[in-house]
């Protein structure tokens, strides 16, 4: 369990993190979503104590804080951050990297072979990382963190450079780690993917951490709340509102129009669909507001 208490970070007079307070629990995957340069990495760096915050503190398991170097080592035994693929040692093999991390964290050596197998890295793991593609390097970095086997795992842009198969593979491993009781904090731009496995998702804006549920209550409710339509003209929107005056309609900057059908019965939903069909709208999606919609609403509007 990790608590961030009133974390504040200022760079050149600008608040990068403003009084951030949040609790991360064991067995939880946390998603961090925000455009580049809004403080995701800074937040992770503060959690790792790579950056000293101007205010606030990080508390691990209700007892450990970065009050001295001894505690820093204790926290680093329990909290790790996925290395960046550009920081790999090109002249040594992937397996050596895994061995180094495994021995540094004194984790189970068998985890190395298990992870290699799980991530399908056997064919190249003994080659120097200088010969790896971006995706291979990214998988190795992920594997390094997995073999460190810490209680809290921080992953910044973990899915970068991965093909859909490996995105899915890594997602499954993250879910497995969650089931082992790990706290996994993932910063990612793959919103659809994040939405699938994250227990809580936070947006970051103006130095603040905002849970998605606070922006869109009922975001994680599993029922039809929204009809998503593309290519809706202003005239069609006006006609729709004349036909369904009590319905909320919102067009996002990404061109998607959301029709709020929360609480609608099957008959009302059928009417909406009939109207759209009559107006030659073919791209219709019944479901709920997606993370992508919220992202567009939150970051791209005005």
């Amino acid at each position, binding site marked *: 369990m990790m608590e961030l208490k009133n974390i504040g970070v200022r760079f050149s007079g600008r608040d990068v993190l403003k009084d951030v307070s949040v609790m991360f629990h064991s067995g939880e995957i946390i998603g961090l979503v925000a455009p580049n340069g809004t403080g995701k990495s800074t937040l992770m760096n503060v959690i*790792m104590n790579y950056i000293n915050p101007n205010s606030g503190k990080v508390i691990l398991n209700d007892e450990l804080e970065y009050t001295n*170097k001894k505690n820093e080592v204790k926290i680093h035994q329990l*909290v790790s951050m996925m*290395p960046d693929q550009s*920081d*790999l*040692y090109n002249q040594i093999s992937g397996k050596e990297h895994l061995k180094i991390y495994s021995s540094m*964290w004194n984790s189970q050596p068998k985890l190395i072979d298990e992870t290699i197998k799980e991530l399908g890295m056997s064919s190249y793991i003994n080659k120097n990382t200088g010969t790896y593609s971006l995706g291979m390097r990214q998988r190795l970095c992920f594997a390094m963190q997995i073999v460190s086997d810490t209680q809290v795992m921080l992953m910044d842009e973990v899915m970068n450079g991965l093909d859909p198969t490996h995105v899915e593979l890594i997602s499954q491993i993250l879910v497995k780690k969650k089931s082992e009781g790990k706290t996994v904090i993932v910063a990612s731009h793959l919103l659809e993917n994040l939405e699938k496995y994250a227990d809580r998702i936070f947006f970051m804006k103006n130095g603040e951490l905002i849970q998605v549920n606070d922006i869109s209550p009922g975001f994680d409710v599993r029922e039809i709340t929204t009809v998503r339509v593309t290519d809706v003209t202003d005239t069609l929107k006006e006609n729709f509102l004349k036909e369904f005056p009590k319905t909320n309609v919102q067009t996002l900057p990404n061109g998607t129009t959301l029709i709020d059908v929360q609480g609608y019965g099957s008959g009302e939903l059928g009417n909406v669909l009939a109207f759209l069909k009559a107006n030659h709208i073919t791209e219709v999606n019944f479901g709920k507001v997606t993370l992508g919609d919220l992202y567009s609403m939150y970051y791209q509007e005005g």
Partner: protein
Amino acid sequence: MWPYYKFEFYQFITNKKNIAIYVLLLFFSCYYALKIAPTYDPIEKVDESEIEARFLTREEFLNTVVINDGTHHFTRFAAAIFPEWNVYDKGRLDAIKQNDLKEYAEATNKWYGYSDKMIFTRGNGVLFYHPRYYTFGNNYATMDGHYAYLYSASRYKGYAEGNSKLSINVFEERTALQTLQRLLHSYLPFILIVSCIFFTVDIVLKDRRYPTLLQGLPLSDWKKLIVKGAVSLIGSIGALVPLSVGLLIIGIQSGFGDFNLPVPIYFSAEKTFSNILLGEYILQNMLIMIFWFLFMISLLLLASVTLKNEFANLLVGCAFVIGELTYFGRGNGIFWDVQWYPTSYVQVGQVLSGYRNYLYNSEALTIVNGLFVMGLCTGIFLFFTFLISNHRKFKLL
């Protein structure tokens, strides 16, 4: 810590700069062994024709000189001192002809002792040491000759009294171990210390190329620094490996010598020489060299956590290597307590042989003082590094 040590050591031995240093040392070592060492031309060598020429000239003089009231006092002086001198030269010549090297050593010991006594105390501007000491611009030729003759007297006394296998190469200090001794007396300590500086300048700062991989390792910055220092120390000692290849070549060419050969040590208080065993001398040199490595490594670790710049580290390290040049002067030990400056011990072999005391006219440049000064400085550097690296807000990278 062990896994981190192995990782750091692996990085050290695969570091291209470090490999380049080892290759350069190997090249230097082989070049020295094959090209420079064979051309070594000592002033005090075994030169039968020179001895014979001197002996016959003096013998001729003694056989023909007539001493009476009108004889010039220099002629009287020569007639008085040459007979004993010639006894020693005759002894040397006979020994060489009979290939009795023990006898040669004994006679040569006496010859150097007597020669120095005559030249240094009674020379009066008419007796000189070997002409090669009197080179252009050397204002201390007599002092150099005096030191060299006493050194040689002591050395030959050691050969005569010792059990080592003697040879001309041993007399001329050409064997591998004696070459090592001579190099420790000249520029080998510089080479080793500068190598240590080059090994250490980036041992901390190289990690800046891999920040996300190394920052979060569960090991304190202080322990990381200690491990890095240990790796650098091992690597610096490892510099002896390529250098030993050269010694091996010299050994094959000129013999290896042995660890029981004598090394004259000058005691400035008594102004005399006393021999120690070559093995002991080399061990003492290694001990001081290790203290130099520790000194340099701790200094550069401190510089790495404060200045955070490889070039600055290099400058700081080199400043200590050449620092002695700023105050060195023959006889300066009378005015300054040079023994309290760590830079005074950079000429390791010369300090241990007492030659540095002879030059400074000091009695205090001793192995004990050297170990104390460098140990104290190392402790101070490490203490400040410890304080800085344990500060809550300190970041190694």
